[in-house]
């Protein structure tokens, strides 16, 4: 994973903090266990002193642990809040999106992702978005629960039937970003992948216009065939 959006930058930092916290816990406990076993291993010997610990020591340990947990809690909230801030469209982004985010309706269905662009064009599998532009995906599902997951651009979010979920990102570099579904959705789940192609705003405009006219042409062709009495 390599973060390519302000949100994933924050998530990446938080992941490293989480990794450090995990490492501290694991090293501390494993170290203490290893020390105790190596130091006090003995098959025989005098009966050891029947030591027990008082309540005050327990409170001290509990207080230390509480402080550790509280620190992680606070840091997580700070970074989570930063990560979910809607990123503002930058100077290289799509001009029309400078006030409002570029809203794209994203629909999960067995086993494809469908993207509906503002101009009524749509695409399956591949999402094309302009670089440096605030994009908001409105996640929905027509059948079962899916999870939209393009790790470089945004955190995961579930598409649940009857609910809308939102994903914000602002891609900082043109290129292709691969993604997948992350919730078991049936037999073709493993193949339910997606791709986000980040292009310049001009290319984006050209793409959605092209898609729109292609779709219109295809529909016209079907209508024509039906009118001629043929099976489309």
């Amino acid at each position, binding site marked *: *994973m390599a973060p390519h959006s302000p949100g994933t930058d924050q*998530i990446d930092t*938080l*992941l490293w*903090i989480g990794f450090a916290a*995990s490492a501290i*816990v694991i090293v501390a*406990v494993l170290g*203490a*266990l290893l020390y*105790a*076993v190596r*130091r*006090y*291993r*003995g*098959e025989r010997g*005098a*009966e*050891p*002193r*029947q*030591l*027990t*610990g008082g*309540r005050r*020591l*327990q409170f001290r*340990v*509990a207080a230390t*642990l509480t402080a*550790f*947990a*509280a620190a*992680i*809690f606070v840091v*997580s*909230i700070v970074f*989570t809040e930063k990560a979910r801030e809607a990123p503002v469209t930058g100077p290289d982004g799509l001009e029309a999106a400078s006030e409002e985010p570029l809203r794209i309706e994203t629909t999960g269905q067995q086993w494809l992702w469908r993207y509906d662009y503002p101009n009524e064009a749509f695409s399956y599998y591949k999402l094309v978005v302009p670089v440096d532009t605030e994009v908001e995906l409105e996640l929905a599902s027509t*059948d079962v*629960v899916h999870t939209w*997951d393009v*790790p470089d651009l*945004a*955190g995961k979010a*579930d598409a*649940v*039937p*009857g*609910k*809308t*979920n939102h994903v914000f990102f602002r891609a900082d570099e043109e290129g292709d970003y691969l993604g*997948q579904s*992350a919730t*078991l*959705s*049936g*037999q073709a*789940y*493993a193949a339910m992948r997606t791709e986000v192609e980040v292009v310049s705003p001009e290319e984006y405009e050209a793409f959605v216009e092209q898609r729109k006219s292609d779709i219109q042409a295809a529909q016209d062709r079907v209508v024509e065939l039906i009118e001629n009495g043929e099976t489309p």
Partner: protein
Amino acid sequence: MSAGRAELVVDGFPPRRPRWAQIATSPDHKDVGRVLIAASLGFLFMALVELLLMRLQLAIPENTFLDPVTFNRVLSLYGATAIFLFAIPLALGFFYYVAPLQIGARGTALPRLGQLGLWFYVAGATVLYAGFLFTPSEAGVNPLPPLSELAFLPNNGVDAWAAACGLATLGFVLLAINLLATLRKLRAPGMAWRRLPVFSWAAAIASWLLIVTGAVMLAAITMLLIDRNFDGIFFADGAGGAPLLWQHLSWIFYSGTYMLILVFALAAIAEIVPAAARKPLFNRDAVIGSLVAIAVLGTLAWMQNMLTAPIGLGWMYFAMLMSLALIVPFGLVFFNLVATMIGGTLRLRAPLLFSIGALASIVIGLGAEISHSMVAAAWQLKNTTDATAATHFALVGGAVFGGFAALHWWFPKLTGRTMGETLARFSFWTMVAGMLIAFVPLFLAGGIEGQVIDAYKFFAGEGLDAYNLIATIGAFVLAAGILMSVANAILSREGGVVAGHDPWGGDSLDWFALSPPEPHNFDVLPDVRSARPLHDIREAIGHRAARAESAPVERESQPVA
């Protein structure tokens, strides 16, 4: 005239029925506990077979060993087997066998209810595997609606899953009710709650967990069955139902179960470590209080599993708060266990070895879970193999390493024989190697490359090949290690070294009963005057012996303890 009279020699009463029928129809807590333990070890074997099938499929990219439908069936079966047929009944089996002995009870309060619970569990297992013969569930470890609804999986696989897990859960709840009633009503004179052994406390905690969260799961399963078979709308969106409802209900149960397994393992270890170190537990109250806190906080953290679902941010923070709060009680238990070892003379026999393995494995899993509880980090990590690895470190640590620690520890009580030490060591180190080789690569594949869970294949050229191949090899090593211990248990039943009533120098009353105990557990019971009744007896005997040496003539007879 010299012909002697024929002598009639009777070795006890001749059995009226074959042994298996005797055990199958016995409401005795020791027989029920033994059947639960044996059955769960059998299902551990089945879970391993299923795990290995899935790992074989995932050994190389775009493998065609299993087709996707078969993979999903094996996956669903693995989840149900590992949780409902192995981990919970293993923990319950030990609680059910040991807790009545530890509190000095001569039986259980509602023996027939417990027997009914056992047979509901057996019925559930039968339904699950009978279902596997024709149409198993394809809906995964946790069958989320709408995928598990009739519209998407119209065959009766999910119904079989629901019936099986429902029956088993009902059985666990009945067993838990009997355990709680026994713990409340049948404690020996002097066995106040403050003197109850940690493992019996854990039995009470686990019973409460099952009664509360098991009831929730039973409700959810009933709703799913109604949805599928009687046109229900509980989990159907748009018709007044909500798919998220199932997620809440089921995660309450699964989170409770997660905690139950860890409470079981930590409590068993809290029995083993003091005896192995020949010291009392560093602070009993702190350990018991922490186990209660783990059960409560852990269950309240159910939404930690739903951090990518469309729920309010406030609820996500609530889930994070409950999850991170668990650091305190878990940390206190670890602290007290290590503090118990310090200053002791540790006898590093198999039970302690497996205990240390369990603690190490659990702390790796729980340490990794910290990142999965931090909201934004969870958005990246959730449903990746990083989560698979964390869950397996924690739960294999609890149920398999911890379960084997308990098995080696109480095996002399169960059978009158000790498990072989050499094979135990081989098994232990193979399991340790297997855990690390199998699950550390999954941490990396999920954490670095974002490989998703539950998928029947992965694609070449995405940096996942090496991780998955190594993980598959590790799974085989792990399985070999686990099977060594299972084989050890089977071989030692007849061939182990004969053990006395108290082979480890334990402090609780289970070591006062014979090995294996009589059907009525105890002929007589000592007065319980502390949390360590057997330690008191050993001390009293020691004092008497010392007095006898110094003043042999004036020795007076003293009641023991």
